[in-house]
């Protein structure tokens, strides 16, 4: 018997494009945890993470055609969207609020690791393995930029490194990770 659960992400998105709310519910069921998880990790505050998550899903509902399955899996697309929104929000905060937030975030990271273990152990292991392949400098630059929401200029200041160096560390680090992940056969789309 066929129902939404048996459809691929792009097929479900066709239904979302036809204003089928149950299809959006299915997208939420598949990817809501990841979207909220990343929002929470970057913005910290649960209420703000909810706002960001809501914004991402409403945008998907209003502009489903912005998602191009030829360019990315739906999970990647949604995580890219939520990351952009979350970072905008973090940047709109005052410097002090940001610092406090980041300290609080560090204290919470333990629980994220536990959750991760349960939800996505295989992928997490591959990502951890891919991170292993980076130099400490590359890892620090990527971590501050991606999870800290800093621009590469801010990262350069934080690490006392030239801007050009930080730019290339981010790029080379990501490329190395990609090579490792591709080698391990990991892509983040769970359905074909």
């Amino acid at each position, binding site marked *: 018997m066929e129902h939404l659960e048996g459809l691929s992400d792009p*097929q479900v998105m066709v239904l979302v*494009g036809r204003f089928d*709310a149950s299809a959006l519910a299915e997208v939420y*069921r598949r990817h809501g945890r990841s979207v909220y998880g990343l929002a929470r990790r970057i913005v910290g505050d649960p209420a703000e993470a909810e706002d960001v*998550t809501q914004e991402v899903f409403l945008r998907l509902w209003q502009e489903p055609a912005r998602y191009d399955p030829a360019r990315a899996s739906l999970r990647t697309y949604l995580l890219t969207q939520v990351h952009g929104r979350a970072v905008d929000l973090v940047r709109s905060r005052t410097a002090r609020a940001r610092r406090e937030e980041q300290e609080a975030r560090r204290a919470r990271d333990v629980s994220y690791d536990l959750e991760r273990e349960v939800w996505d152990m295989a992928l997490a292991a591959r990502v951890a393995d891919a991170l292993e392949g980076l130099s400490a400098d590359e890892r620090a630059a990527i971590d501050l930029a991606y999870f800290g929401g800093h621009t590469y200029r801010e990262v350069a200041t934080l690490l006392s490194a030239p801007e050009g160096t930080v730019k290339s560390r981010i790029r080379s680090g990501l490329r190395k990770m990609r090579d490792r992940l591709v080698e391990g056969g990991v892509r983040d789309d769970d359905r074909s």
Partner: protein
Amino acid sequence: MTTARDQHHQVSDLLGPYALDAVDAEEAARVKRHLEECHRCRAEVDQLREVAAALGNTAEPPPEHLWDRIADRLGSPAGELGPGARYGERAGLAAAGASPLPPALERAGPPRHSRNRARPRGARQRHGRRAWTAAAMGTAAACAALAVVLGIDLSNANGRVAQLQTSLARQGPAAAVAAALASPGHRVVELHADDGARLAELVVQRNGVGYVVASSMAGLPDDETYQLWAKIAGQPISLGLLGSTPRAGAAFSLGTSVGEAQQLMVTVEPAGGVVTPDRGPVASATLS
């Protein structure tokens, strides 16, 4: 004068930071403009973003009310599908014992004739939800555009869609739980209190995904939540929060540890949940 080549050079330098949203607004606009023309850079950004997404793929169950909040904003003009209508629909489901899917499904309306499937959705929209979006985008145009983007032949897809919507309508909102209960190799787990009272029933599928089938756990004050745990190799691992009033259909996942879990249990914790339970379970089940 800046040649296209120079521009490519300057921008390609920014691709890494751009993929992580680590550029300022002016740079982001510059990269974006370049990506519209440059195939190669666009492909690289796509690849780098895939890596970033793998890095950021950290799951955390969102609060239960979040989907309701989103569903409420899908374009329903106030009053058209008010709480009365919604809870009216839900009342029938409550009798069936479970409402496992997000409310949008519950509100998806009565079964429709499958031969209407090929027509643009707006034409047969029951509740006028999303009317404003449809007006803004042009429903038919939006569908057509999406079909082109997705490279999917709508005339073929429609048969499939018709089938699945009919089966959904037939199954009703208990579909996820029903499907789990019908899946090969599933297990039904009853959680009992110390005094032997049966407090909840869960279904766990072979792939590790499970749902609350029924719960009679008492409602908690707002600042507390039920938290579900699996004991794996003697260690309690959080499977997520069930909220202050666990609802049928709440989903959780044991992931690949599904075969290794020795025990499932529920504790009462402060609203945000805890990393390690320091209180004893209010309900538990030993898995054989």
